[in-house]
């Protein structure tokens, strides 16, 4: 049922809805907590209440009048009051908010003033006619070429391409031009940058430490998705729940980086769970803004004051996004695997010859090895792996794996306690062995388990308690295999795990990603037949619990038993026959040379490095928690982390469309609900966003808020028509671009008479084109392209182009910005390293986001600092020099006029007017004269290493001026 069918034509229900939400909903809206007089105006009214409402809004008595004078001293506007009265008179039909009603395809209006039969134009022309406005004609081909090129690929159109378009006589010339742009590699880079604003992408973690993170593979995924024109619904589902798709590909895992772009606080004093809470809040808010156009964040602290989202429903959405672990995904790299294997084999060969480098002044190798060998034999213990029968930890899931090792997963804290119960042993237990085990499933290959803070792979066992048979079993010693070199060759003994001091303990000691062993010796053995329990405490100022470890027992052991020999060797050593085999001997020689012979410690350390697996590119992803270890979601009173209340099940707001039949109640089901055909918001929101980028403003001018407090669409029927058309065309963004850009409305000229402008200063009715200022990234890319400097290289780790001194130094740790070399200075701007707490200066000056929150619409400020940046920023200067050198070359080959025109057109596409060209030539001549007389200035202007040619300096000055023109930073 449509709204219009319910309401008499004379009442504008959306206006009524707007008046009610603006003036009444705060106390009489969806939020039950703040509700006054038990009155809801977003629900059907009974007659008594309607009568009272009429009396109240018409009352002159300040005690009675609504809205209350204290809050609204000026009262209702006359038109608003009349609208309410008319609505009440008409039986106060329920005014359902427009955006919650699914779009229906409206009939196309007839062809209007523009003469265009294009569906978009029919709607736009109709509205123009209503507003009494006459549309501007279509812009000239140069302006169109520049506009479309900047919109689609983010680069100015090359003059010769524009000339071809201008000369083309085919009726579909512009469409074909668009097709070429849509197929260009720059298309995906341009569109990806828009998306990264929404995804709050950055290359650092944010907050105090703001350390670098590796999530650029996600950025590359976005580019590739636009390249492939991935249908928008798939694009969204893969980003929200790619990991849950059947037979998910690596790319689909990478895509889940969308919601891993939240910030991470690594400051020492934090509770990591609190900042994860804030990150989930950000995910819910971003999901609302990007896919639903709803300000869901409003319902975090209390039920939404204006939109129909209760606080419980808010946390119901939260529950969908709160059930994933947040690991790094290592990207497969077969070439690196091969390189590693080759290096590993070579290193082993070298290791087997390492004794040849044995120092001559030391005890001879064979003798030394034999002595060590004997000690290993003496220390060899027949360890029995002990499998815990019961495992317990507050937050972590502990699972015993087939080899008897315990694997931990889930949320680590800064002080985790593991309680492990063991069945009674048949023999007494006098010694316990702890193996900290590496594992590719763990951060940095383990053995530590924390992804989000501190060095990856780090662990720290602070205290160990042994209980059994109703008593404590105290420790006599604790020896570790991974002592720091300072501890010498001997096995270090530590009291650190039973000294009661949480600041001391057994640490990874720089052997992250490797196996380490510790042996705890009991003062007296636990007698056979006594079940026992271990309590292990982990943590320091960052989480550092063990991710994989194995425990073994023996009746007795010496401190030397804490050895990094693997179990096979230990078992062989314990066997009087096998210990003499060549195989065992080779293995032991390797272990000895690699880690137990300080005589060649340096060489061994180098070999150790070569035996280690090389680093791989990683990226941040979601991984749904195992079914038996879900993360519970609570409603939080007042939205505060510290005030969890009742459990909340995953659910979607009841006022929105229904949950799709048969979908699982998880993130994947949620993603499919979002993109469902009966979602009233999903298609409207994205269509509006694309529209806003092409037309300067959205049809809904609050693109992040389609709720009650947002603005209503200027062209509601057009928005609905486009939403449905978009869906019918397979949600292809390229198709949507093509559809919108082939309209006359898009192609209008920007030039307009003052009177026309005054009639519609905000250009709501689209009689002319907007001239939006370009984003900082586009300004830089366009400059690089005009200068002939732009690197065509796509993808890969972020780069650091030059920027002024002292930008990043303001951030924590005063990090230096070491600008890259060569091509890295000239890559497209979306590859620039994005540091959240100190963004790249040029982009920030032009309103680029910091990546600290989702940005749906960038500001378009127009400031003196921008003027200074265009003229004086070191990056712009470097580009001006390159541009100047290029124009100087053109001048030598073709003359001044050609070069001036070339400079102008490379940047602005259109040919200069005669008076413009004249001004440029006059300028050039004056600068030329200046430089001819000032060789010092020439050298300075061209910079180090350049040939000090006054001509080149003059062209650089010209290039610098061109780059600063308003037109160079504006879309035509």
């Amino acid at each position, binding site marked *: 049922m449509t709204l219009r069918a319910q309401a008499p034509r004379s009442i504008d229900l959306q206006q009524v809805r*707007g008046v009610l939400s603006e003036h009444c909903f*705060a*106390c009489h809206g969806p939020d039950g907590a703040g509700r006054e007089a038990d009155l809801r105006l977003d629900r059907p009214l009974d007659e008594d209440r309607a009568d009272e409402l009429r009396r109240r809004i018409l009352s002159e008595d300040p005690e009675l009048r609504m809205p*209350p004078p204290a809050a*609204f001293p000026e009262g209702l506007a006359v038109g*608003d009051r009349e609208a309410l009265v008319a609505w009440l008179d008409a039986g106060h039909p329920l005014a359902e908010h427009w955006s919650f009603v699914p779009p229906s395809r409206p009939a196309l209006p007839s062809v209007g003033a523009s003469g265009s039969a294009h569906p978009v134009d029919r709607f736009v022309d109709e509205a123009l006619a209503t507003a009494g406005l006459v549309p501007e004609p279509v812009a000239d081909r140069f302006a169109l070429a520049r506009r479309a090129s900047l919109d689609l690929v983010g680069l100015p159109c090359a003059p010769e391409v524009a000339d071809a378009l201008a000369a083309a006589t085919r009726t579909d010339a512009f469409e074909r031009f668009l097709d070429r742009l849509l197929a260009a590699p720059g298309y995906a880079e341009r569109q990806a940058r828009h998306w990264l604003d929404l995804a709050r992408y950055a290359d650092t973690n*944010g*907050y*105090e430490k703001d350390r670098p993170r590796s999530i650029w593979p996600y950025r590359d995924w976005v580019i590739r998705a636009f390249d492939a024109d991935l249908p928008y619904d798939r694009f969204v589902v893969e980003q929200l729940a790619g990991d849950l798709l059947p037979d998910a590909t690596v790319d689909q895992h990478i895509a889940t980086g969308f919601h891993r772009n939240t910030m991470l606080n690594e*400051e020492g*004093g*934090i509770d990591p769970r609190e900042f994860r809470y804030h990150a989930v809040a950000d995910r819910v808010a971003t999901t609302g*803004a990007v896919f639903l156009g709803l300000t869901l964040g*409003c319902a975090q602290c209390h039920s939404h004051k204006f939109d129909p989202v209760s606080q419980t429903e808010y946390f119901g959405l939260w529950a969908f996004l709160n059930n994933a672990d947040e690991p790094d995904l290592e990207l497969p790299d077969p070439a690196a695997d091969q390189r590693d294997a080759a290096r590993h084999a070579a290193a082993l060969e070298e290791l087997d010859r390492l004794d040849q480098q044995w120092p001559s002044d030391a005890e001879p190798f064979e003798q030394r090895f034999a002595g060590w060998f004997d000690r290993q034999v003496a220390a060899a213990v027949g360890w029995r792996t002990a499998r815990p029968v019961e495992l317990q930890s507050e937050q972590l899931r502990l699972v015993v794996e087939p080899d008897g090792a315990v694997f931990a997963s889930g949320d680590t804290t800064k002080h985790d306690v593991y309680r492990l119960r063991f069945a009674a042993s048949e023999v007494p237990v006098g010694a316990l062995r702890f193996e900290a085990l590496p594992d590719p499933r763990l951060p940095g290959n383990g053995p530590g388990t924390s992804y989000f803070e501190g060095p990856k792979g780090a662990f720290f066992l602070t205290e160990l308690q042994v209980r059994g048979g109703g008593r404590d079993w105290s420790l006599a010693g604790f020896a570790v295999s991974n002592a720091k070199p300072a501890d010498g060759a001997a096995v270090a003994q530590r009291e650190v795990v039973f000294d009661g001091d949480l*600041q*001391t303990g057994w640490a990874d000691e720089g052997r992250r990603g490797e196996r380490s062993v510790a042996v705890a010796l009991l003062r007296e053995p636990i007698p056979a037949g006594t079940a026992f329990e271990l309590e292990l405490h982990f943590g*320091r100022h960052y989480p550092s619990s063990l991710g994989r470890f194995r425990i073994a027992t023996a009746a007795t052991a010496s401190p030397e038993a804490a050895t990094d020999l693997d179990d096979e060797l230990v078992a062989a050593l314990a066997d009087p026959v096998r210990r003499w085999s060549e195989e065992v001997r080779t293995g032991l020689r390797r272990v000895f040379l690699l880690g137990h012979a300080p005589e060649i410690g340096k060489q061994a350390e180098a070999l150790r490095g070569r035996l280690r697996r090389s680093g791989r590119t990683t990226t941040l992803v979601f991984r749904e928690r195992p079914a038996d270890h879900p993360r519970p979601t609570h409603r939080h009173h007042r939205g505060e982390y510290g005030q969890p209340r009742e459990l909340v099940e995953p659910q979607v707001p009841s006022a929105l469309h229904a949950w799709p039949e048969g979908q699982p109640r998880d993130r994947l089901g949620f993603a499919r609900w979002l993109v469902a055909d009966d979602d009233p918001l999903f298609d409207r929101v994205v269509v509006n966003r694309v529209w806003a980028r092409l037309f300067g403003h959205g049809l809904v001018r609050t693109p*992040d808020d389609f*709720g009650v407090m947002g*603005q209503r669409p200027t062209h509601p029927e057009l928005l609905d028509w486009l939403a449905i058309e978009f869906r019918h065309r397979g949600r292809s963004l390229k198709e949507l671009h093509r559809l919108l850009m082939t309209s006359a409305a898009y192609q209008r000229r*920007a030039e307009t*008479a003052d009177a026309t*402008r005054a009639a519609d200063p*905000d250009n709501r009715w689209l009689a002319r084109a907007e001239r939006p200022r370009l984003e900082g990234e586009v300004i830089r890319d366009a400059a690089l392209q005009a200068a002939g400097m732009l690197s065509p290289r796509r993808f890969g780790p972020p780069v650091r182009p030059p920027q*002024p001194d*002292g930008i990043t*130094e*303001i951030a*924590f740790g005063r*990090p230096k910005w070491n600008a890259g070399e060569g091509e890295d200075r000239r890559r497209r701007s979306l590859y620039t390293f994005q540091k*959240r*707490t*100190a*963004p790249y200066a040029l982009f920030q*000056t032009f309103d680029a986001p*910091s990546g*600290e929150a989702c940005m749906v619409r960038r500001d378009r*400020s*127009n*400031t*003196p*600092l*921008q*003027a*200074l*940046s265009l003229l*004086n*920023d*070191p990056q712009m200067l470097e580009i001006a020099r390159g541009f100047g050198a290029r124009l100087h070359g053109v001048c030598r080959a073709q003359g001044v006029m050609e070069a001036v025109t070339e400079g102008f057109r490379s940047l602005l596409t259109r040919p200069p007017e005669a008076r*413009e060209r004249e*001004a*440029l030539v006059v*300028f050039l001549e004056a*600068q030329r004269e200046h430089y001819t007389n000032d060789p010092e*200035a020439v050298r300075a202007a061209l910079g180090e290493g350049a040939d000090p040619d006054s001509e080149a*300096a003059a062209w650089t*000055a010209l290039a610098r*001026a061109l780059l600063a*023109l*308003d037109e160079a930073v504006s879309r035509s």
Partner: protein
Amino acid sequence: MQTNQPVHVAAPGPNRREILGGLGLGLGGLALGDLGRPEARAPLGGAATQGPRAPHHRPRARAVIQLFMAGAPSQLDLFDPKPTLTELEGQPLPPSILGDQRYAFIQRDAGVLGSRFDFARHGDSGVVLGSPLAPLGRVADRLCVIRSMHTDQFNHAPAQLLMNTGFGQPGRPSMGSWAVYGLGSESRDLPAYVVMSTGSGLSGGSALWSSGFMPSRFTGVRFRNGKEPILNVATPAGFEGPVQQRTFDLVGQLNRLRSEVVGDPEIDSRIAAFETAARLQVAAPELTDLQSEGAATLALYGCDPDKPSFARACLLARRLVERGVRFVTIFHEGWDAHSDVEGTTVRNCNATAQASAALVEDLARRGMLDDTLVVWGGEFGRTPMVETNPALGRKLGRDHHPQAFTMWLAGGGIRAGQSIGATDDFGFHITEDPIHVYDLQATILHLLGFDHERLTFRSAGRDYRLTDVHGGVVQRLLA
């Protein structure tokens, strides 16, 4: 009852020059950030426009200089002497005091640490200061010391953000943004809101002076410490003088030609922006020429005009405010004394105490203190307990302490010569006049002429305040 309704300014109504002119406030928010571009009209729903507000009442302060002691100074060593800590040094706090507080770096049973400094009373008002802050004593009677500040945040970045933006995570407008949003600027050539940083790197990053969801023209403009504080204000070598002049001329000329053709007022705004930029290039050297201050003033601040320092930033701040800048924040990060609280305190006081005092005195003798508010303080306090951690090489430090800390205010309608608030014998809990960060923010806005509950900005469907849904004006602070 609604309390946070938007401020309604009739739209389209008079332009801002008229509004501000009528209030005698000069140009609003126009310098650097904003050059009279047409404001967005009210949304269809009829909500507030987002131009500068009219003050709700007569402002007491027209400018604010915030001396932000990032990292958190030790109130127990500078303002709030606790003989009990010296007496009981090494003994743990009574559990009744400690409650269930947990710390990142110290054990719950850590012993208390007495201050290594002597305290003395200063001025007629007898303000108590620890010896490293003795230089501040000369302006003691102009200070209002609050020994009962408290905050919700335990960590640097969130606590710095809370103090500066009213929220513990990035994304909200900073206090300076609110001030400029409310009052605009009085300077045509200089930014309305300037930020400097003289210590080590800042925990909160650039979000501390961001305009958040407000238009970016309300963002603080960062001045660097070197010879050229304003980013890109200096013409690159080889392009100075006539080359630059001709460049401005050409750009202006071509922009005007374009404006004739297109008629887009944004081009006129850009022309004006370039004109301001050119003026700024001229004004900047004059602004930063601290030699012109004379030896006595330089000596008062302890400022070497050629060397970046907190003193130099303070002197520059006075010159900025003199020229109509509305809000200046100087961040001095470096107080985070997890180890050696004694040395850290002395070092930071040596870098800042004299200049802080000089700023107050200098403002006063120029008659500027009456309407310039000076705010000194960090993001939280430090523990009465000692922090010692051999593994991290720490000893005789103090950890973070959000429950109680000290700030001082001067000028701008503040009642001078008083100390407010008290803490228990351990300096752990506040016992008198607790003042939350939000209360301070509400009071600062009050002094600038605004009711903090009514100065709102609509974003994402909600009317936001600096103080969120908290805070109240602290009457005791007001003159």
